[in-house]
């Protein structure tokens, strides 16, 4: 099957900054894919190349098998991009904005889909309002609708939830999940790593224009992060049988690695046998944030 997004050895330089430094990547159709990295890692540049907003210096990029330069019409029809910055045209109302965007893609009589987008994104009551009068969150919803107006098979969201309230964030993710379930490929960048962890099946991490990690969310978590049992012992010390890999966090708290959640019961039994009195405990799941921090630290130049 043709990859939804495929880039090969992509490089792009802005003055003295190497924004992309030989990026190769394939996102399969139907994936919910996250592109993570610190500011300036090259995520937005990569997205710009996919949408034709920037031309790469070298390398190839294609969307649904269509080269973004030589077959730009088909490539751009196949992708809907929600840019990071909130931008709008102050001359038009919400509906006019969507009708125009639809027309730029050569679509006429797209009213039913525009109505559905307005409804799904909570914009129906603002359809006739001028773009200028909308709040920042509402303007962002319109941008999402603009990116979806031509029903692209590939949807790219560049930090869609930056500075967005909880309600919009939740409704946006519910909508995007539905789109993914309906077969759309989703490519997402975000600084909210818990969002990426919850939503995405595969993750690429970028740094200094290069991809430094690329794997399924599950495997990244397993390889770089661990489940831990934290216990607070009242007036007793940790038995020697549990000492391997443990960390004394102070104030009676100990941090114990848990390879498998089934081991927790046995560990508690050993504490009981040693006569330790457990005042408090919690099991924490692996977190993407930890993976991210470790990978960024390890790849620091």
């Amino acid at each position, binding site marked *: 099957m043709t990859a939804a997004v495929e880039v090969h050895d992509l490089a792009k330089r802005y003055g003295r900054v190497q924004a992309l430094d030989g990026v190769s990547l394939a996102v399969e159709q139907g994936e919910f894919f996250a592109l993570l990295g610190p500011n300036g890692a090259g995520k937005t540049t990569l997205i710009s190349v996919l949408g034709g907003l920037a031309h790469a210096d070298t390398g190839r990029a294609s969307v649904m098998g269509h080269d973004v330069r030589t077959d730009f019409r088909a490539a751009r029809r196949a992708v809907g991009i929600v840019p990071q910055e909130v931008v709008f*045209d102050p001359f038009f109302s919400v509906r006019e904005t969507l009708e125009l965007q639809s027309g730029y893609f050569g679509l006429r009589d797209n009213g039913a889909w525009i109505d559905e987008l307005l409804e799904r994104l909570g914009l129906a009551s603002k359809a006739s309002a001028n773009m200028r009068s909308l709040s920042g969150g509402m303007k962002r919803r319109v941008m999402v609708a603009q990116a979806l107006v031509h029903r692209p098979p590939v949807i790219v969201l560049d930090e869609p939830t930056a500075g967005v309230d909880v309600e919009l964030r939740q409704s946006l993710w519910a909508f995007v999940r539905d789109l993914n379930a309906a077969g759309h490929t989703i490519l997402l960048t975000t600084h909210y790593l818990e969002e990426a962890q919850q939503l995405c099946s595969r993750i690429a991490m970028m740094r200094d224009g290069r991809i430094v990690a690329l794997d399924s969310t599950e495997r990244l978590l397993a390889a770089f992060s661990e489940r831990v049992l934290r216990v607070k012992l009242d007036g007793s010390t940790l038995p020697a049988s549990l000492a391997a890999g443990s960390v004394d966090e102070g104030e009676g708290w100990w941090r114990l690695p848990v390879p498998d959640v089934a081991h927790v019961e046995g560990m508690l039994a050993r504490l009981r046998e040693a006569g330790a009195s457990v005042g408090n405990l919690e099991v924490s799941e692996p977190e993407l944030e930890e993976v991210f921090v470790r990978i960024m630290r390890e790849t620091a130049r």
Partner: protein
Amino acid sequence: MVPAVRSGFPTLLRKEVMRFWKVSFQTVAAPVLTTLLYLLVFGHALAAHVQVFPGVSYVEFLIPGLAMMAILQNAFANSSSSIIQSKVTGNMVFILLPPLSPVEIFGAYLLASMVRGLVVGMGVFAATLWLVPLPMKEPLWVLAFATVGSGMLGTMGIIAGIWSEKFDQLAAFQNFFVLPLTFLAGAFYSVHTLPPFWQAVSRLNPFFYAVDGFRYGFFAQSDVAPAASLAIATAAFAALSLITLQLLRSGYKLRH
């Protein structure tokens, strides 16, 4: 899948026309008023002193020149202001992300600029009809020069909009380039009244041919033969169009 689709060009053209039409008080009525003020002031002050063509009063002489000046300036203003606004506010992405080719983008901005120039030009004539009924001896020349003149400046506006990164750069382009060239294009005088050196300089100005040829359409009198003027103005228009298309194809200052 996405259904079979048409070109996005008509929509972009419609958007560009809507953009100025929604604020037509500012983009059409205001320049018509400015032109009328020129006409009243210069026409009144100079009417008794100047006669350029035999049998043509100075006010009559002035109207086509001023109308052409308004056409040129407004065609330029339309494309240049639209592009710079979109670039500065960032909404240019909504034009750059769709599958619009360089030719489609060029055509839409150009035609909308021509429409604005021609609407303002017609506004000037409508407003001056009650003042001085003007003959129109060769209407086809009027149409031809209005079309080529507005096209030339609409194209120049696209170039200026693409090149400028800030509003003051565009203002500089307008004030130090477009404005002098339109004022020195012979709207207020015949080049034959100028000293030989300035006559020669005027002939290097492509706007001069647009004004002179346009005026020929009304009075069947001009400084240069209209066919020659049309050829020169069309050549300038074509050259500017090729430059603009090349800029759009390369993504210069638009696709970074």
